[in-house]
């Protein structure tokens, strides 16, 4: 092989390597550790907060879920669609009560090997009584883990309540060696009773994980596919001890578990109603893993050395 040809081949290999390293971050591959659940909405309202969802990864397409909302006016509603095996090019089409809400190409949060969470505001699409939510997904080999709904309903006949809706998608896995993650609720009324609802995906029954609220253990093996395959919506009463409460997820024996949503609802000390929405965070894109770069460099070096010798 002449020198010109050798230079050409090495050059092409180098270009290939540079292309690999310059691939768009956050698309495909290890999608990063994700974002710990943070507060996206909080407020005080006379009424109630409805939290429900199910029913695990079933492979059905479209994926159907019915929500029976209590009486009241829907002031704020956040629909959550966690999805397994997201790849760029996939999409979900969400329909509520027969009307298309959105066609989403990109999930709001994605982590690990494509565990994605789509979040949609659905205030005007829902009503009291039975609501049908349908998710048609284009995702070969994957699909929704479930559908969950958090709806804040105003009902003047009820006492005021305070609520916090935290959302994110954080990969607690043995692969990235992340063993715990926390999510905080600020300005909590100390001494009040509250109820906590936690949405987790990818949990496996029998693999012990732990859930702590202000250092008090409130759950064991919470991610156990209780509401369906790899889908858990865990509800538990808690008592608020300080002006800031912290929820901590411990991975324990779980291979993979993704805390996605945490909703805290407590008695309110204030009669003043408000609804505060926070800006949505975007996850830092996944990086090309160091191992991939190293193997590419070594391979490139080996081939280059071989051609140099010839």
């Amino acid at each position, binding site marked *: 092989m002449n020198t010109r040809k050798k230079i050409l081949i090495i050059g092409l290999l180098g270009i290939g390597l540079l292309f690999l390293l310059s691939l768009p971050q956050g698309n495909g591959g290890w999608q990063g550790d994700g974002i710990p659940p943070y507060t996206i909405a909080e407020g005080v309202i006379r009424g109630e907060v409805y939290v429900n969802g199910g029913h695990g990864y079933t*492979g059905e397409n479209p994926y159907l879920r*019915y929500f*029976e909302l209590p009486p009241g006016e829907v002031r704020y509603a956040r629909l959550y669609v966690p999805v397994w095996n997201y*790849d760029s*090019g996939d999409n979900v089409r969400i329909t509520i009560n027969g009307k298309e809400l959105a066609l989403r190409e990109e999930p709001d949060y994605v982590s690990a090997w494509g565990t994605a969470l789509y979040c949609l505001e659905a205030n005007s699409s829902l009503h009291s009584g039975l609501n049908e939510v349908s998710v048609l997904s284009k995702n070969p080999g994957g699909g929704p883990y479930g559908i969950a709904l958090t709806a804040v309903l105003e009902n003047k006949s009820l006492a005021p309540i305070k609520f916090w809706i935290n959302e994110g998608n954080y990969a607690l896995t043995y692969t990235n060696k992340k063993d715990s993650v926390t999510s905080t609720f600020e300005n909590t009324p100390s001494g009040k009773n509250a109820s906590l609802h936690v949405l987790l995906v990818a949990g496996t029954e029998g693999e012990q994980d732990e859930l702590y609220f202000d250092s008090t253990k409130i759950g064991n093996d919470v991610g156990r596919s209780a509401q*369906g395959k790899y889908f858990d919506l865990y509800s538990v009463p808690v008592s608020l001890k300080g002006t800031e409460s912290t929820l901590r997820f411990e991975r324990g024996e779980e291979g993979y578990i993704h805390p996605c949503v945490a909703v805290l609802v407590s008695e309110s000390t204030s009669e003043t109603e408000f609804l505060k929405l926070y800006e949505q965070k975007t996850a830092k894109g996944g990086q090309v893993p160091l191992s991939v770069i190293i*193997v590419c460099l070594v391979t490139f070096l080996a081939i280059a050395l071989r051609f140099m010798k010839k």
Partner: protein
Amino acid sequence: MKHERIFAAILALITAVSLVSGVLASGTVFVSSASSASPLQCSFEIPLDKNQAPDKLVAGHSWERARVNIENSGNELLNNVTVFIEVPQNLEVEVSSQPYPTTKEGQMITAEIGDMASGQSADIFLEIKPPSSIEFKKQVIFTIHTAYSGGEQQSEHRVSLIPPPSWMTYFTILASLLLFVGILAAVKHFGVLDLFSTVDLITIALLAAVIAVVFRYLSKLINLGWFDGLIIAIPTVVLMIVALQLVRKPGTATLLFTCVLLISMVVWGSHIMWLGFYLAEGVVVDLLVFLFKMDYADRRVTAVIYGISRGGVSTLVFYLLYAPVEWKISYAPWYIGMQLAIACAGGLIGGLLGYDTAIKMSGARL
């Protein structure tokens, strides 16, 4: 030459059978014992994932969704339609919110559909959880009784419960380890490892690293939908053929795929349980090398045969053993057939490309 023809014919037959079984299985129709005189048609579907085998549940599996569909196929309005679904005792059942008032009392689910016009249909959804353990495969019966003003009907729907793969899990791990120990013993007895020079081992390790790290990463960057399997199958076979031609020692493929697993364990956290899967694809190729009188993919036809065999074996081992064991999923025959066809196509393309690549690289041994 005779071996090659026989083997090529067997491979072609397997591929054809897998495709035909796929087509046939996709047309499976649920058989119900409903009376043909009744205007109500009843069907029962579990699981709802079309890729999974219908009317089969693997014990130890989590919740699976079932759908009961009732259709008024008659010409008249039916009043006060009520559906009673008797769920077998050894299955857990839950019902969630749905369009029709549905109640659960023990194992009996009652859904009040109300009036049904001609041609109208209604879906009732159930969440079903199989037992965590059963000794042998068995059939359970869902009895669906439908009553309406002026008539009633009953149908039975059989669902197979497949034994939990807990013992199969141990068996798989044990078999994998025995295979591994057997290979090590054979390696020691025949002094196979002594045959590999340091350069051979470096070559195998490097190729294994490329398969385990780079290809696996790249496979997540490209989305070919149903043909995603080709993204990793083709380059893997190419490098396998390259390894065979460059190293030219018995056991090369087994060593290559064992290294792929070991690297995957370190880099991606793959489970040791997959040892048998990786060993199987390596062992089959090495056996074929032996069968073809130490032909290290030196001919295009053997390269293709090795590629297809590797694809076929890995697909069958995965869908027939590892999917039920690891994920407790029983895939539908048509789906397995389709994946087998894709894997064989990947092996064919990879074999052809691998042969050309290996020929060009034959002078490029490290």
